[in-house]
C-alpha cells in the first residue's frame, strides 16, 4: 500500500489529535503493517506547550515598523528597531515591540553593535589657540552726534563769549574813554597832571610813550610801556636845524595854530610845549632806551608765531583762533570782517550756526 507524504502526515496528526475516523483508522493500520518504521512517530509524539511570551518574529516587526522613518531604507527590522531606540524616536507600538524583544539574543547582539555606533567625543581634545580668539578690548561705541553737539555747543559758547567781549572792547567810544582815563592815570603817576586837572609839564611828560594810547590792548600794562615796538627818532645830528624847526613850530603856535595831537588821549589842558621843551623832549627821547623785559619778549615772539606779527589786531586774533578751532574740531569755524563804507560787518560762523554783527568803522 502506497500513501503520499501528505496523506501519511494527515493520518499521524489525526492519530495524535484523536480525530481518526474508522476508515482512517483502518487505513493507518494497513499502512503500519506494510511500513513498521512509522510506528516510532506514533509512540513518542512531541508535544509543544504554548509559552507565556509570544515571539512574533520578523514578519510582525516588518508590519509594525512600516511607519518608521527608516521604512524605506534597506536593513533588518532589528537594525531599524535598535537604531530607532538609540535615536529615541520609537512610537508607543514600537516601544511595546522592543519590550517583547528584550530577551532575544539576536536582537541584543544587533542592539549592542548599534550602541557602539554612538560616537563619543574625546574631551581631552581642546582647541589650542583659544587665546587668539578672545577679544579683550571693549567696543567703544562713540555717539558722534552727541559728542559733536557737545563740543560744538561748548566751542560756540566760548567763542561767542570771546566775540561779544571783543565787540565791547572794539566800541570806539569805550576805547577812547578807557584809554583817556588810563592815560590820565599814567600822566598823574608821572606828575604831568595833578588832581585838579592842571598840567605840570616836566621832563617825564615828553618821555611818555604815547603809543600806549594807540594800542588799547596794552593799556593794562605797567607804566613802562614797552610792549609795542616804538620807533624813537634819533637825535638830530645838527641841533640848529632842529631848533629852527621847533622855532617855526613855536611861531605857528603863536599864531593860534594848534598842531594835531598824535595822542588821542592828550589832555586839552596840557597845551603845546615850548620849543625849548620840545627840544629837550626829542633829545631825551633819543637818548632813552626802554629795556625789553623777558615777558615782553616772550609775548612778542608768541604773537609772532601765532598771528604772524608782534602786535596782532583783535580781528586777526579772532580769525586765527577760528581757523585753529576749525582745524581742531573738524567743523567749519569762521570769523570774517567784511568791510563796508560806513560799518564793517562781522561774520562769525560755527558749523551751521552763524552770527552777523555790524561794527562802526574804526
Amino acid at each position, binding site marked *: 500500500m502506497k500513501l503520499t507524504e501528505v496523506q501519511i502526515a494527515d493520518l499521524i496528526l489525526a492519530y495524535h489529535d484523536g480525530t481518526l475516523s474508522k476508515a482512517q483508522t483502518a487505513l493507518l493500520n494497513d499502512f503500519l503493517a506494510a511500513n513498521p518504521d512509522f510506528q516510532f512517530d506514533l509512540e513518542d509524539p512531541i508535544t509543544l506547550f504554548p509559552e507565556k511570551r509570544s515571539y512574533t518574529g520578523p514578519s510582525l516587526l516588518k508590519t509594525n515598523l512600516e511607519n518608521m*522613518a*527608516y521604512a524605506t*531604507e534597506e*536593513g533588518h527590522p532589528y*537594525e*531599524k528597531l535598535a*537604531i530607532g531606540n*538609540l*535615536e529615541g*524616536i520609537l512610537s508607543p507600538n514600537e516601544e511595546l515591540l522592543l519590550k517583547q524583544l528584550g530577551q532575544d539574543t539576536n536582537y541584543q547582539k*544587533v542592539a549592542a*553593535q*548599534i550602541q*557602539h*555606533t*554612538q*560616537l*563619543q*567625543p*574625546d*574631551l581631552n*581634545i*581642546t*582647541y*589650542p*589657540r*583659544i587665546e*587668539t*580668539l*578672545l*577679544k*579683550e*578690548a*571693549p*567696543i567703544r561705541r562713540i555717539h558722534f552726534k552727541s559728542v559733536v553737539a557737545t563740543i560744538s555747543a561748548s566751542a560756540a559758547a566760548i567763542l561767542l563769549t570771546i566775540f561779544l567781549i571783543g565787540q565791547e572792547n572794539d566800541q570806539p567810544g569805550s576805547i577812547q574813554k578807557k584809554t583817556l582815563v588810563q592815560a590820565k592815570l599814567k600822566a598823574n603817576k608821572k606828575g604831568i597832571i595833578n588832581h585838579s586837572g592842571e598840567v605840570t609839564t616836566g621832563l617825564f611828560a615828553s618821555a611818555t610813550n604815547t603809543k600806549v594810547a594807540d594800542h588799547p590792548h596794552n593799556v593794562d600794562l605797567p607804566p613802562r610801556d614797552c610792549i609795542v615796538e616804538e620807533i624813537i627818532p634819533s637825535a638830530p645830528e645838527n641841533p640848529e636845524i632842529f631848533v629852527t624847526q621847533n622855532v617855526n613850530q613855536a611861531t605857528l603856535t603863536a599864531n593860534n595854530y594848534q598842531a594835531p595831537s598824535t595822542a588821542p588821549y592828550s589832555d586839552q589842558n596840557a597845551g603845546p610845549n615850548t620849543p625849548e621843551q620840545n627840544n629837550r623832549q626829542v633829545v631825551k627821547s633819543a637818548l632813552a632806551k626802554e629795556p625789553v623785559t623777558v615777558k615782553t619778549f616772550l609775548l612778542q615772539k608768541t604773537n609772532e608765531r601765532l598771528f604772524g606779527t608782534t602786535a596782532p589786531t583783535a580781528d586777526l586774533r579772532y580769525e586765527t583762533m577760528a581757523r585753529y578751532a576749525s582745524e581742531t574740531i573738524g567743523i567749519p569755524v569762521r570769523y570774517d570782517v567784511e568791510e563796508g563804507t560806513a560799518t564793517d560787518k562781522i561774520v562769525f560762523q560755527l558749523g551751521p550756526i552763524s552770527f552777523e554783527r555790524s561794527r562802526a568803522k574804526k
Partner: protein
Amino acid sequence: MTVQEYNACVREFSDGLYRFALKNVRDTDLAQDFVQDAFERLWLRIDTVDYQRVKSYLFRTVVNLQIDRSRRQSLQQQHLSSLPDPVHSPGVAHDVQQLIDEGVAQLNDIQRTVLTLRDFEGYSYQEIAEMTALSVDQVKVYIFRARRFLKQYIGKMEVLI
C-alpha cells in the same frame, strides 16, 4: 551680542567646535583654521548674531567651510580614493573605539557631519536639518545609514580580528 558674550562663546564652544571639525576633516591645522574662521565671521557679525543662536551659527559655519573645502578638493579626493589608504587599513585596529574611528572615516561627508552633530553636540534632527540645509527625513536617513554602515563595519572587523 557684547564682547563679554563673545568671549563666553569662545570659551564655551571652541573646544566642541574644534572636536567636530577635527572629526570631520581629520587634519589638526585645517580644523583649527575652520574654528578660527568661524569665530572671525562671528566677530564680524557680532551685532547681528543673536547670542541664543551662536552655537548653531558657529557649527553651521564650520559645516559650510567643510562643504566648500569638499567642493574645492573633489577632484583631488577622487584621485586619492583610488589609492590604498595606509592609515585606515583593517589590520591595525585594536579595539572597538578604533574600529569606530576607522568606520567614521569611511563615511561620506554628509553622513559623518550629521552623525557627529548628533552624537557630539546632541543636536535635534530639526537643528541639524537647519545647519546642513537638509530635510528632517533626510537627516534621519543619513544617520540611519551611517549607524548601519558602522554596525556592519564593526561586525566585519570583529570577525576578522
